Each structure stands twice: as structure tokens, then as C-alpha cells.
């Protein structure tokens, strides 16, 4: 796994095909829920963001969401990369994660699989490139 990268595993939440983040991993371990709730509150909560979820709804949740599409997940990943000062985030659906897991026999091969796969969100501030998300979200 790239030392600066983040790994996220997401799932579809309900029949409406909303998405949620189940796990997010940093090089120091899983990221604290409060940090992620903070980002979600700032950028995704309220009617302006197209969400009916309230802060109190999120306190008992063991996931971050809902996100109405994968683009929103990517946007969240971008903000998280910025907050955690990481170069990129690899986002995996459950099926992709399980597929890598199934092929792995030990930690090394599993980490290799994670570092090569997934949907990659790049934090341009960190990588020095000017990309799509940097222009769109800032």
C-alpha cells in the first residue's frame, strides 16, 4: 500500500442505491468516526447538499453516508485526503474488496492487491498536479 494513501470500502445502503463508507483506513489505522463525520457534516449534510440526514441520525451509525452516487463518494475521499494530508484514496466496493481478499494468502499480497486496485481519488495539493477534483471542489 502506498504509504500516504487512504483505503475506503463502500457499500450500497438501500434499495435506492445510496452508498455508504463502511471502513476507511489510514497508515495509522482506521480513521476515527468523528473526523469523518466532521467532513460529512460540513459538505454533505442538509437540504443544500441534497440530504435529509441530520447530525443526530449519524451518531448511532457505524458507517458514513448516505452518498447519492459514487461521485459524492469521490468528493468525500478528496476532502478526507486533504484533511489527512494524503496523496490519494483507493475506494473499493465490497465485491472488489472481497475479490482481492479471496486471492490473498497473507498480509503482503493483500496489501499489494489494495494498492493496485479500486477507484483512485487523487489529492492534487499533495501530488502537485492540477486535476478534475481540485478544480471542481475548491
Amino acid at each position: 500500500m502506498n504509504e500516504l494513501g487512504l483505503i475506503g470500502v463502500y457499500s450500497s445502503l438501500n434499495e435506492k442505491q445510496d452508498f455508504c463508507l463502511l471502513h476507511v483506513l489510514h497508515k495509522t489505522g482506521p480513521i476515527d468516526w468523528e473526523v469523518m463525520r466532521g467532513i460529512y457534516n460540513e459538505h454533505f449534510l442538509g437540504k443544500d447538499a441534497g440530504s435529509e440526514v441530520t447530525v443526530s441520525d449519524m451518531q448511532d451509525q457505524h458507517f458514513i453516508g448516505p452518498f447519492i452516487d459514487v461521485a459524492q463518494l469521490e468528493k468525500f475521499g478528496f476532502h478526507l485526503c486533504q484533511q489527512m494530508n494524503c496523496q490519494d484514496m483507493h475506494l473499493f466496493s465490497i465485491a472488489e474488496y472481497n475479490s482481492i481478499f479471496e486471492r490473498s494468502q497473507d498480509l503482503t499480497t493483500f496489501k499489494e492487491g489494495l494498492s493496485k486496485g479500486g477507484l483512485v481519488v487523487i489529492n492534487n495539493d499533495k501530488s502537485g498536479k492540477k486535476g478534475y477534483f481540485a478544480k471542481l471542489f475548491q
Partner: protein
Amino acid sequence: MTLTTPMTSDEDHIFPGENWFFYWKISSSLWKTRMSEIPGSKLFVPINWSFHSENGEMFDFSHQKPETDLKRLEECAQGAGKELIFLMPTGPAPYLPNAGLPYLLARNLSVDRDGLCYGILNADNKIHKVYSYFDQRVYKAYRRFCTYLGTYFSQNQMTSKIWGIECGYLDAQGFVSFLEDRSPVFQEGFAQFKQLPENLEKNNLEEQVWDFTKNMRELYTTTASHALQNSWQGVVRTAFLGTSNRDFLERITNDGRVSKFARDTLTMICNHIYPSSALLSMRTKKGVLGKILDDLVNNTLVHAEFSEKKYEASLDAHYRVLNFFEVYEALEEYGQYESWNDIGLINFLSEKYPWLYKVCDSRVAQLNFQSQVEEERTKITFVHGHELDKSSFLSLLKLFMSGGQIIIDSCNMDVALKQKLEAFILENSLNREKVNLHIQVESVTLGEGKMILFEAPKLARLSLEKKNNFWEKILINFNFQHLLLPRTEGIEFFWRTKSASGLDLRFTEIRRLGIYNTSSYKKVIKMEFPTQFALMKLLDQTNVKYQTFPQGIEIELMPEGSISLDFGHYQ
């Protein structure tokens, strides 16, 4: 350069923790020698199904590999002066590759409630995968193995006890069994289950999933207990530290946090879950975590969980977990009614009286309070009225009459029992008082006995703050003498107790406090002792300095530091 064979870390693999012995990891010719090297009188031997059968059809019990000879294993243990206790998994065994399934049966990966494969790392960073036990072929093969094993035990006149272990992990909601599954194999079986006539009218999908899983769990447990009935002792829920998917992801980047594993261990002990560190590396548990496991599991829980009742008198020699609150609840039941957790009790006790409560499975305990009647130290007993029957109700009344302190959630209590209670109060002209503490509460007293009745659903609807306030006000009415320590970040402490021995007749009880610094920082703790407590001795000091005062002590704990303090308690 050395001419001797280099020492490997085999020790870690053979004895992975808490006196577990992996017999398949070492030549049978060395069994007795190695067994005699390990401290403690009990040796726990998990039975490795896949080691005795590659395909689930044929079995090897010393026919080919001498290490499969369980009779010889028992003889070696006896020769080494150890009591051998076999552990029979009643579902996936996370400490084994393929979670213990013979490799030809390991076909369908099991997934958790979120749909993720169970990720388990062993101490060598190899991945153990969990396969579905909802596969019919797996069940049939398991039944064959249990039957064969039962016959083997009988024919060889083996005398060792067998405990079933349901393996799982601890997450935010509590114990989760590795038998739980949401894979396509599970879905296939579940679709058939839903079509059964008795399930057609049930609409709650979550409850049906719960029922199906519970049925499957009971099927495996019953199969094992029937086949091994001569030696079977019951089932212990065993949670493996570091095996939740969140832990797995954390262990991708580091060994996992000692502070979390320490906290998990204490949570498990209070929640009737047996902890195992078999999947953690020795590096992780060589310091303060190892000390916690040694104190609380090897030297405390082992005696409480795995000793026969008839030897209870000898248990006085050992420290037991100290608790003032016994919380009864049918564990592993679908949450039709409000649980103690739902109404904020567990959260309140965890914060205010850390690790001084014990959650008991009301079905296992059969709500018989005789042992509490006989105890000298009064505990506060929490019971759901809907779980009481005539016999347990009478037992509860007996406890009350002998000075017991009881809190009853009276919602959905049997009407006849409610009438009996009402008649009991009236006939004995007991003091009763009704107060409003956010919700209506009734208090009944008889001498030292105290009973409080309330209805859980009303409390469940209140905010967390009001729930905490409710429990604060309720528990202030109950007396118990103890030395309460404030919670300190990075410090864990745990109380144990034993009867005062002949030399300590001044005291009614000896209480041992273990203090452990699980952080990476130096910590200082100051304690003042109430007059009912006398500091008797300090022991097991590692990386600590201390200074005593009249009725007080200041302890400085370096990272990984720990110390135990013995207090005598005057009545």
C-alpha cells in the same frame, strides 16, 4: 556461529496464549515434555477437525499421523500433572486455516452483516478465511466427525472434559459469532427457511434472519453435545482479540493497539465472553496486555469458568472477578423487548462503575438466585420481568427477603406474577413509595431488602442524558462499600476479590486492584482510601514508583507499567 539448532518461535505456535495447546504443531514425542513446562494446572486443547480429516469423510485418530492420537495426548497431560480440557468448536474456528474446515469442504466464503469477508490474521500475518457453515455438506461432515469423535472417546475410555466453544469477536454491538453469515449459501438456506409454514406469517426480516442463524447455531451445538454427551460440559462464547474486520484493517498497517485489546478484554469479562489472544503476536502481548491476560484470564476466569461446582470451596483460594451489579438478560435472543443496553444501564455502569458489573445470560443461569442469597456481599440484581417464571420469581422474592437489592423491569411481566407480587407487598404491609424520576418508579423495602420496579419502554424513549440521570438517582439509594477510582485515559484497572484467609481475620474480604498503563505515556494516579479499607500490600510491580501516605497512595506508572494492590475490607 552456533552449532546447535537455532531456536524458532515454535513456542508461540504451540502455546498461543491462555494455556491453549496446539497439539498438531509439535511431534507427539515432545507432548509430555512441553506440557510440563507450561505453568498452571489446566491445559486447553482445541480439537482440530481438519487435522483429523482432509475430506470430511475419512478420519485419522493415530492411524497415520501419531499427532492425531488424542488418547495419548490425554495420557501425556496426566503424566505432566495437567488437567486436560478439550475445546470443540461449534462453528468456524478462526485460529485455524480455513477456520478449521477440512480443505475439500472449504468452498463458500462467509461474509459478515455488511457483506465483507471475515478477515482474520494469525500471529504470522497469514490470512485465515472463514467458510460458510450454512452449507449442508459442511453440516453433514461436522455431524459425521462429531459422531466419530464421540465413539473414539467412549472406546478409548477418555475422561477429559469437552467444552464447546462458539468463536466470535467483539464489536460495538457486542459478541458476534463467526457462524453468522450473509453469503449466497446463507441466502439459499434462508429462502427455504422463510417458506416453512411457521415462518410464513412473520414479516420482520431482521427477526427471521436472527431466527435462522439461531437455529443453525443450535443445530451445530446440539449435534456436538449429543455426540459427545459423556464428556460434554456446555458452550463458552469465546471472542478472539483482534479479529473484527475493523481490527483486521488496523492490523494491515500495524500490530493493533494494545490499549484497544486491553479494553476489549475487560469488556468481554464483564459481558460473559471468554477472551482469547491466540491470534495476536507475542510482540503485541508480551507487555502489559500479557499481564492483564495472565491476571484476569489465566489466574481468574479459568478457575471460575472451567471448575466443577463440587470443588467450589477450593475456589476460595483464587481471586474472583469483583462485581456489585449482576445484570440478567437472555443473550442471543432477538431484541423483541428493550435490553439493558437500550435503556442506558450498561453505558451508565461502564462510565460510573467501570468493570464492576457482570452481564449474565438469564437462560444459562435459569434465574436462580440461591448463590446470591448465600453471599455475604450484597449485589444489585437487575432482572427483566418478562423473563421470570414462577420458580425464578419465588427465588427472587427469597433474595429480597434475605436483604437482596433488586431492580425489575416490570414491563410484560406475567400478570399472575404481578398479582402475586402485589399480594406479597400487601400481606406483609411493606413500605412502598412511588416517585417520578422522568418515569414512574416504585420502591418497596423490607429490612435491608430493596426492590425497585419500573417499565423499560418508557425509559428507552428518553435521551441519553436523562437515562444517565435516571440511573444515577436510582443507584444512589443502594449501599455498597467500595473504593471507586476515576477513569483515567490510558489506564485500565480491574478489581478481584477473595475471602479473607485465616491470617486476615480482621477483614471480611480481600480485594485486589490491578492497575495497568496501556498508553505510551507516563501516568500518575492518586488514591485515597475510605476508612473501611486498609492497604495490605503492593505486588507485581513493573515499571512503577509509588509513595504512600496515611490512607492514600500516589503511583507513577511508566508506559507498560502495572501494579497490584491488596486491600483488606472491614465490614
